[in-house]
């Protein structure tokens, strides 16, 4: 029975940490006042680039860097189109998603049909480096040890990134300026903040972070390319919802990841739970899987509506989100 709970809690973290990467990256972008709907595509490109080059080099570090750079380049494209060229953010973001996912299939098909074939993750050096690290002593604690202290390095990295980002927003001067841009770019501009530079840097870094999340998905799904299913599998879209649920705060995003992850894991593990606790949780198997899948979006919809109905002053939604800044329109 304890095993079931341990596995359940463990799965929440293992299968949902990419949401944290996606969400943290998107928060960074949205804080600069840009709404990037291209999370799914950005993650897909980072995933496929990082995986393939990472497999060649046999180094997880190289894989992460490549994912970061590849997705960062996608971010650069988004920044160039929306900041410099003043293109519409929704349209650009959506196109990045279609483009990115199509890019994944294109590369995947091309490599699978080539002579060298698609590289298999199992037994590779990359796989070895991705395996869980058992933190000495801590990982020996029952339940908690397995749940919290025996994970792949990329899981710890994701949490570290979210915490660092929180510190950056709250405690540093550039973080403050960034938030000012998201709230009122005109005012920030008049204070001498270089808006375009700030937007570029944060869109690129935010996209790069998403890329590592994509790489995680690739590795966690065993790195096999299927012609019909993209690794990212909608996590990019859930990340966009999670940004709202986390109220644009990277620290709340950690919590939010586990809450959304909880529902996601319930969908997969409802049967073992119902069997382990027949008296209290028998009803779990009666709930359709689609309900759990839809739940993040339903919750976010409710949060969106309630916070606007209540004219919630606690909402950290950047006021200038989604609008391009063109100085001469000011």
């Amino acid at each position, binding site marked *: 029975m304890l095993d079931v709970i341990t596995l359940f809690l463990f799965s929440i973290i293992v299968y949902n940490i990419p949401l944290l990467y996606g969400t943290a990256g998107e928060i960074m972008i949205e804080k600069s006042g840009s*709404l990037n*709907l291209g999370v799914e595509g950005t993650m897909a490109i980072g995933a496929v680039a990082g995986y393939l080059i990472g497999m060649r080099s046999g180094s997880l570090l190289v894989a992460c860097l490549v994912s970061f750079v590849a997705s960062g380049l996608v971010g650069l*494209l988004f920044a160039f*189109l929306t900041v410099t*060229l*003043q*293109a*519409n953010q*929704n*349209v*650009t973001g*959506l*196109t*990045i*998603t*279609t*483009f*990115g*996912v*199509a*890019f994944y*299939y*294109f590369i995947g*098909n*091309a490599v699978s*049909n080539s002579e060298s074939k698609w590289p298999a993750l199992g037994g590779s050096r990359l796989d070895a480096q991705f395996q869980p690290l058992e933190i000495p002593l801590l990982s020996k604690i029952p339940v908690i040890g397995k749940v919290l202290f025996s994970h792949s390095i990329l899981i710890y990295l994701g949490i570290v990134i979210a915490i660092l980002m929180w510190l950056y927003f709250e405690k540093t001067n550039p973080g403050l300026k960034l938030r000012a841009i998201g709230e009122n770019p005109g005012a920030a501009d008049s204070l001498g903040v270089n808006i375009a530079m700030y937007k570029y840097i944060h869109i690129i870094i935010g996209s790069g972070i998403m890329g590592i999340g994509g790489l995680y998905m690739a590795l966690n799904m065993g790195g096999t390319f299927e*012609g019909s299913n993209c690794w990212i599998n*909608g996590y990019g*879209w859930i990340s*966009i*919802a999670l940004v*709202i649920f986390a109220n644009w705060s990277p620290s709340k995003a950690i919590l939010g990841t586990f809450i959304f992850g909880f529902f996601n894991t319930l969908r997969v593990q409802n049967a073992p739970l119902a069997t382990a606790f027949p008296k209290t949780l028998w009803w779990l198997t009666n709930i*359709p*899987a*689609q*309900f759990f*899948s*839809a739940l993040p*979006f*339903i919750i*976010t*919809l409710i949060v*969106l*509506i309630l916070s*606007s*109905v209540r*004219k919630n002053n606690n909402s950290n*939604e950047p006021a200038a*989100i*989604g609008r391009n800044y063109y100085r*001469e329109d000011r």
Partner: protein
Amino acid sequence: MKKYHLVRRPVQSIKRLLVYYLIGIVISLGIGAILLASLGINPFEYYGRMLTIGMVGNKYAYKNFEGFLKVLVPLLITSLALGLSFKMRFWNIGGEGEFLIGAISAAIVAFNVTGLPRPVTIILMCVAAMLSSGLLGVAVAFFKVKFNTNETLVTLMLNYIMLYVITYLGKTKEDWNFFLDPKSARPIFGKFPETAIMDGIKIGNFNLLWSVIVAIVLVVLIYIYLKYTKHGYEIAVVGDSAATAKYAGMKVGKIIMRTMFISSALIGLAAGLTASASGTISETITNNVGWTGIVVAWLGKLSTPAIAITSVLIAILQFGCKTAATKYPSIDSNFADLLQGIILFSVLTADFAATFTIKKKEDAKNA
């Protein structure tokens, strides 16, 4: 200080815009050709097949043309509908969700209303679809108008909620679930009764579905609506500046809600027609028109004729890539999306080059 800065061109020339667009598209196709060549595919052959949607030298060319029209009609109507809301700067990206709820409503009618003549059944299906989609759109507009709820994010959430609703219907084998095929042990969506399936006008072997005619009529109607009616004028003013509209005594909230109803109802109509034409529904019935429509409306600069032309081109691209993909194992129909992305990126760049110009600072001062 920077020496150069961006200035909006004082005169927008359509000719310049078209030339820049064309250059952008040619460059994109060039990039696509390089990608194709890198896979060992002859790009000329591929593009040839794509642009002719596989009709040349094909005994069943009319089948291809029918297939192409089935891709075009929902895309065309959805793009026009989304364009309506975008004109007010109302970011309805919920085309997918509005389409899905429309398709579900049409299917409810199709499975339950029997014994009526075909045209009546199909019209009922379309009305049900339009009402359900329209109401969903009005609900979003209501929250936007009343509480300034972010419509982009709300419609995005609704897309996924609707997707899971239809997936649920398609995967749940229960007695009450009339959507499913009763004869199949596995849950699959059932086929509509004969009277709910659209027919058309036979021209030789070619079957011109009624939905195509409806779509063409709609293009004309929407053009007139936007150009020559008071409503159309109001939409334009609200899009230009909601404050101006308010000052001029227009009821902005009412205009937004009305337009969103029309916009979503049209997407519902597209869904009803598509469901009837395919004789069933599925999770993939939208064929992503809710997403692609956004791009099409934008590429068409929200002008009705331009959106119509763009959706024809995008439908050629999508259907063409699908037919071409069957010939080449190393590529799949997703290449259409890749190409579409590259085209949009370069067209956005072209758009910028046509709207803005780079000037030296001193020049600007003198001007």
